[in-house]
């Protein structure tokens, strides 16, 4: 019984939250990795792109809520999500037209584009705060739990409860669907193959008659979709606050680099590696250990390796270790 309780506690406090967080990171990292692979620069504005897409979704969610439209047990935000994606697509295409295209025509070096994207970051950052303000916004509604801790306890008679939030369930399911669609698109469709060809060898792609502007446009459209979905899922799971998206940039980049920049499978694996390590290292293991160990050996402290304040440091530690031994990431990406 104690063993079962330990497993449930582990699932409840480590596995379930890390799965949800990992899915969000993976979706974010996929966007970063696509841009790196095809447009050949590290897009620092990705975090704020997520914030913008999520913001548009939040605004529409509020509108729908005020009209009394809802999805029943599911959050209304899912209904507003397509509109958020459209808004984000508009923003990214406009940014590309006004900013990035100019530098592409100059054949600017990746380093310059990185700094340009940093500028874009601050502008997007400003736009988001200007429209919705810097504060926390709640927009989640519908049922809060798929399985609540109490029902679980009553059902199983165990001392530990397992709670799965609706948002966590939605996050994981959406991520699986989106990733499946993306891989089908990249591997099975001609457009996707053009994108892979362009990423593999730009010169040759041009000489195969592939229109670079179209590849770039489609990339931005896909990235807008991924960023908005990731942003909304994160916002539903936690809450929407513009600054947290800027902070999310760090673990997202860590995920993409750990997996191998430019490699979509790597981005997903990286997302989960980072999420699980962040959660396990900052989790207080006392509860789980108490169930597993004989009474005399029970820990008196919290058995928390690092305080949650150091959460971000974990991503970087992993990043350093992986890059020392595999400079191109876990899955072979492009050299950074």
């Amino acid at each position, binding site marked *: 019984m104690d063993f079962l309780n330990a497993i449930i506690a582990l699932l409840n406090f480590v596995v379930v939250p890390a799965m949800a967080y990992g899915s969000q990171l993976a979706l974010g990292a996929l966007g970063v990795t696509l841009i790196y692979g095809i447009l050949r620069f590290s897009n620092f504005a990705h975090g704020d792109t997520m914030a913008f897409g999520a913001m548009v979704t939040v605004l529409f969610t509020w509108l729908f809520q005020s009209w009394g439209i809802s999805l029943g047990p599911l959050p209304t935000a899912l209904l507003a999500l397509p509109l958020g994606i459209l808004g984000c697509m508009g923003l990214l295409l406009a940014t590309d037209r006004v900013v990035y295209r100019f530098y592409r025509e100059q054949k600017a070096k990746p380093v310059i584009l990185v700094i340009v994207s940093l500028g874009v970051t601050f502008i997007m950052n400003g736009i988001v705060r200007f429209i919705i303000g810097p504060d926390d916004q709640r927009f989640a509604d519908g049922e809060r739990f798929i399985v609540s801790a109490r029902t679980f306890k009553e059902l199983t008679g165990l001392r530990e409860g397992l709670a799965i939030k609706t948002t966590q369930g939605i996050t994981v399911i959406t991520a699986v669907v989106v990733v499946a669609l993306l891989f089908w*698109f990249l591997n099975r*469709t*001609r*457009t996707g*193959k*053009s994108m*892979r*060809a362009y990423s*593999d*060898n730009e*010169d*040759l*792609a*041009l*000489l*195969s*008659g*592939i*229109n*670079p502007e*179209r590849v770039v446009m*489609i990339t931005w*459209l896909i990235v807008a979709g991924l960023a908005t979905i990731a942003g909304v899922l994160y916002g539903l799971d936690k809450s929407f606050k513009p600054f947290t998206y800027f902070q999310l940039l760090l673990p997202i980049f860590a995920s993409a680099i750990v997996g191998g920049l430019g490699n979509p499978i790597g981005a997903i694996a990286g997302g989960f590696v980072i999420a699980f390590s962040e959660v396990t290292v900052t989790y207080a293991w006392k509860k789980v250990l108490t169930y597993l160990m004989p009474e005399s050996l029970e820990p008196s402290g919290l058995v928390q390796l690092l305080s949650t304040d150091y959460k971000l440091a974990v991503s970087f530690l992993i990043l350093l270790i992986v890059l020392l031994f595999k400079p191109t990431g876990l899955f072979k990406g492009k050299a950074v």
Partner: protein
Amino acid sequence: MIVVDDLHKHFGGFHAVDGASLEIAQGSITGLIGPNGAGKTTLFNVIAGVLKPTSGRVSMAGEEITGLPPHELFHKGLLRTFQIAHEFSSMTCRENLMMVPGDQLGETLWNTWFGRKRIADQERALRAKADEVLEFLTVEHLADHKAGQISGGQKKLLELGRTMMVDARIVFLDEVGAGVNRTLLNTIGDAIIRLNKERGYTFVVIEHDMDFIGRLCNPVICMAEGKVLAEGTLAEIKANEHVIEAYLGTGLKNKDKVGA
């Protein structure tokens, strides 16, 4: 077919192409030779739209094509290969060939979702054509190999194969024989001659192997220091005083250079 008029390409103070003018006749296999650094590849890059010229004009069949981007030139039937073979390394040889014709139906988002049937038909036709090309080049056994894993010479053949996926009008081959063994070089040579005779491709070939040039090319153009030095049959070129000087140099000329 192609007329190049007083073309200049400067990189800062370095004049890689310095007033080159030449004409390439329809249906010919023109050889382009010259010592290293003569500006041959830069000239290719400018004509093929990879680099923008500093000044000068390029026209194709009477139509000005100066500075057009590569994918537009591709649709006009102007193709090229690279000095160091390029390939989409993570795709199979067959997929590499099937990438070639640009503007396929499946390249728009709309068709990706709503035109599956038509895309499938087109893909089937392309697949058949790719297999035909691989057979023509006698490398049908490589169809399902990853292009990143085949030998350097085979990559060169694959590059030649890419030009056969569309009806090219003119193909620029940049050192197609570099690092390729004799037997394979002969296969490449045969393919070039057949494409020229059977399909009417015009070729421009940069090559350092004079036997290869002699077997394939007439006329031969010799470049040095960004200019066209001489044009004629290989025998005429070999006898040309300026050409010998460009390749071997003269004591006097070197002294001049040092002085300058």
